[in-house]
């Protein structure tokens, strides 16, 4: 059994090497930790990273964790990384918003809200890995149901879907 400080160091090493999101279950398994312990340790770690003068923070992402730069250093980092060609059309953003709030949602339901054909937008979003197929709806024609991915949350710097603003007067669906 590792000491607490060592566990934190181990998690730091894992997150650094991975560079991507590591799921909570995976960390629990690798480090042989109980869920409550992991959560508490991660809380402490995140606070420690935030409080000390360092360029990296740990973020929660869909029940997992990921390392990212602190927003304060965005101007510096963007001098190195040119944000090239990342543009989503308003049509794509609208569609993403609908998928995010309504998932699992079929193409027909998206088109009902938008009032236009959405095939191409969905193909683009699938290609960019922002939405994925969740399964098929149990109605005639078995339409594909779509949902958002980890990458979606990451792209918009959201830690989970709950962080999206509340819908106004959404009747229970």
């Amino acid at each position, binding site marked *: 059994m590792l000491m607490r400080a060592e566990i934190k160091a181990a998690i730091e090493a894992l997150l650094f090497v991975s*560079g*991507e999101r590591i799921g909570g279950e995976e960390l629990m398994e690798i480090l042989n930790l109980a869920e409550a312990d992991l959560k508490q340790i991660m809380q402490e770690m995140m606070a420690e990273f935030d409080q000390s003068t360092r360029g990296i*923070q740990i*973020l929660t992402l869909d029940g997992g964790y*990921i*390392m*990212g*730069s*602190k*927003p304060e250093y*965005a*101007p510096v*980092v*963007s001098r190195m*990384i040119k*944000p*090239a*060609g*990342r543009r*989503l059309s*308003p*049509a794509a*953003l*609208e*569609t*993403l*918003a*609908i998928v*995010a*709030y309504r998932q699992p949602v079929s193409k027909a339901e998206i088109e009902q*809200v*938008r*009032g*236009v*054909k959405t*095939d*191409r937008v*969905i*193909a683009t979003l*699938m*290609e*960019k*890995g*922002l939405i994925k197929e969740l399964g098929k709806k149990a109605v005639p024609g078995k339409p*594909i149901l779509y949902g958002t991915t980890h*990458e979606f949350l*990451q*792209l*918009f*710097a*959201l830690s989970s879907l709950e962080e*999206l*603003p509340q*819908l*106004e007067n959404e009747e229970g669906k």
Partner: protein
Amino acid sequence: MSYLVNLDKFYGPLDLLLYLLEREEIDIYDIPVALIADQYIDYIHTTGQIDLDNIGDFLSMASYLLNLKSRMLLPGLAAAEEVETEAEDPRDELVHRILEYKQYKLLGEYLASRYNDDMKRVFFRYGQAEINWAAKEVSSSLNALLHAWYAVMDRNAEVGEYDLPQSIDIGEKMEAILKALPENGAAVIFQDIYPGNSLRSEALAYFLALLELIRLQKVEACQEYRFGDIKLCLQVAVDNVDAG
């Protein structure tokens, strides 16, 4: 009315309706259907070009508005409304759809604000799905493909002594390319697909066939680095998307 309006500016009939309502500062719960229907149809008239792919959705909204307009004119309904205030307003559905659309449009803008705000951005080691994009974006780079094609042509510099007239079918070449690509989506290098001993005209047919396949989104072309090999693979995920 001679102002030219591009329907492309609107991301669908609901977007256009919303624009009209906002321009006229109309209370969304009390839409003057006749006025809005007329303005809406004027808009479609003044677009000049008609793009059949897009216009369908706009036209179906126009016919819906006209239907609504005529229903509003029916005296029976108007009378009934005065008696029981609870009577269903035929405009309810429209109001509901516009409000719903507006909400998602605003949410889309909210998402955009989160992601375009470079100054507060959090960067990740593997980018924000950006790496992925760059690799795919190349499929539209004609130059990279041309470059690869010239490389193939150089390899087959020895052209046959006589150019016998022969009929070359691009459709056939498209099938040949599709056949050469593994089902599982694994990548194959463009130069390898193309048989080394063909005539220039046949090589050209392969190239045209490839462009066509990319246009139809059946094949994907990626290039990992500048002047690197172009890899082709079957595009699996979007089989079911119609090419229009």
